[in-house]
């Protein structure tokens, strides 16, 4: 065995170990610097694991160093932040999906307008912000929407297409279109009639003599006054007639006694009977009563 072989093997293995460690650290941490620790706490189910990036306002400033599963439903997360960066105290930590492949990152988002000069010290705990909707949640929601849409589509298929609703709808639309055409024709026709009527009316109106109308109106007004005075006279006559009838109804007056006295009635009947018999006798024996002499 040559000594040169040992040296070559040693060099190759050493370089391989260096490449391996450098590559693994770069992939897992983004660099060889360990950075300073910051802590935060999230609820379970965040898909967090060691090596995932830590973002400050979207800029990669570190990595997740450790994730400890607690029994109370929370995760203690240790972050390693590059020493070049300081995290403002107004920042909140959230778990944010990165891309469509299910990978996540811890996003530190400072409050806009706050004092950005005041920063967390190494070992501080960054408060967790409200959880963001994960890709799986969005997918679940989209899935449920898709399911509902599918049901609606199926119902439409059954109710509208299979049951002939679509055909009926087409018929209805066609009928409505025909009705609209008919209505339009009617409207056109009526419009023409109306135009003719208006023209005739205009002619009639133009033919009316305003002076004659005026005199007619005046005559009508005079007639009205005459009717009004006549009505007043009629009213007076009616009043008088009422008085007369009242007197007639009164048994004390002459007319009243005439109307209500039964003795008078009987006398009158007897008189009439006597007159009848007289007339009958006259008819039977006219000579007894009438003596006609000529010269």
């Amino acid at each position: 065995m040559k000594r040169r072989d040992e040296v070559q093997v040693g060099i190759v293995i050493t370089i391989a170990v260096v490449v391996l460690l450098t590559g693994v650290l770069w992939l897992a941490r983004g660099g060889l610097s360990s950075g300073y620790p910051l802590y935060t706490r999230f609820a379970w189910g965040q898909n967090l694991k060691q090596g995932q990036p830590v973002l400050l306002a979207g800029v990669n400033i570190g990595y997740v160093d450790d994730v400890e599963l607690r029994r109370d439903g929370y995760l203690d997360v240790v972050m390693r932040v590059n020493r070049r960066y300081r995290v403002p105290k107004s920042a909140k930590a959230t778990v944010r999906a990165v891309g469509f492949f299910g990978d996540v990152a811890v996003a530190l988002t400072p409050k806009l307008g706050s004092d950005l000069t005041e920063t967390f010290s190494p070992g501080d705990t960054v408060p967790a912000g409200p959880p963001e909707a994960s890709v799986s949640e969005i997918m679940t929601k989209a899935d449920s929407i898709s399911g509902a849409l599918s049901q609606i589509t199926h119902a439409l298929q059954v109710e509208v297409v299979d049951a002939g609703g679509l055909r009926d709808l087409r018929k209805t639309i066609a009928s409505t279109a025909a009705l609209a055409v008919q209505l339009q024709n009617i409207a056109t026709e009526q419009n023409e009639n109306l135009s003719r009527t208006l023209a005739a009316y205009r002619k009639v109106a133009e033919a009316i003599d305003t002076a004659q109308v005026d005199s007619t109106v005046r005559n009508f007004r005079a007639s009205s006054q005459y009717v009004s005075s006549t009505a007043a006279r009629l009213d007076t006559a009616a009043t008088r007639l009422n008085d007369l009838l009242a007197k007639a109804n009164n048994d004390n007056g002459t007319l009243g006694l005439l109307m209500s006295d039964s003795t008078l009635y009987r006398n009158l009947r007897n008189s009439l009977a006597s007159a009848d018999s007289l007339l009958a006798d006259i008819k039977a024996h006219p000579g007894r009563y009438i003596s006609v002499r000529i010269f």
Partner: protein
Amino acid sequence: MTHFPHHPRPASTDTFPVIQRSGIRFFRRVSRGVAGAFEKAGAWVYFLRDIGRAFGEPATYGPETIRQMKNIGVDSLPLTAIVAGFIGSVVALQTRYQMFPGVQLSLVGLATRQMVILELGPLLTGLVLAGRVGARMTAEIGTMRVTEQIDALETLAYDPVAFLVLPRLLAAIIMLPVLTVFADAVGITSGYLMGVYATGISPTDFKDGLKLGYGTFQVIYSLLKATMFGGAISFFSAYEGYIAEAGAEGVGRSTATAVVITSVAILVLDALTAVLLAPYLQS
């Protein structure tokens, strides 16, 4: 020491009718194949036992291991780097041009990392070394077998397994992961160069993709596969050389057999590893 059984010649079937004769020969061939497979598996176990025994003689295999590490590892470095470099760049290029509009470009970095580290890095390194190192190993040990140098070693109270097989096995098991580390690094670097300078992906996109969803177990998985491939290459190659039959033809046949068995073993181990360990890659 491994023993090689001698099979008795089967009875002649020439007097049987054609159909019976064909049937008997067919079943004899099948039974011989099945028995041969079990016999081979048994011989491998015996060989493994001999290797285990050889661990007790570090003075014999220690110095030779370093030399074999140089032969297997250092000398294979350029070939491994060339293969990995082309593979990484082709993966990046293919991924970039298969992407439809709207897909984020960091996918190129992600695909390059996953393909090179998880699959192509260890697999192609193993297959390349099966041809380059395995064939050489079989030829070396086979030639020593047919020229009776191994018998001479036994005569000199040297354990030939400890002197010839174990150093190659250890060297391959150690150097395959080392070569795989270089292959992974070269493959990803060439993919980065191809992606950034040939297809217009921004360096940031590629680097973001490289880090996306990364877990340290991915590298462990890659090195674990490389270790198994190294063991398979050296074990089967050394075994085939160790049992080489007399003559140049026997050595050639053993070499070809070793390359075939080693290549198939690498692919089978690759599939087994994926089935058993792939679920842990997401954690």
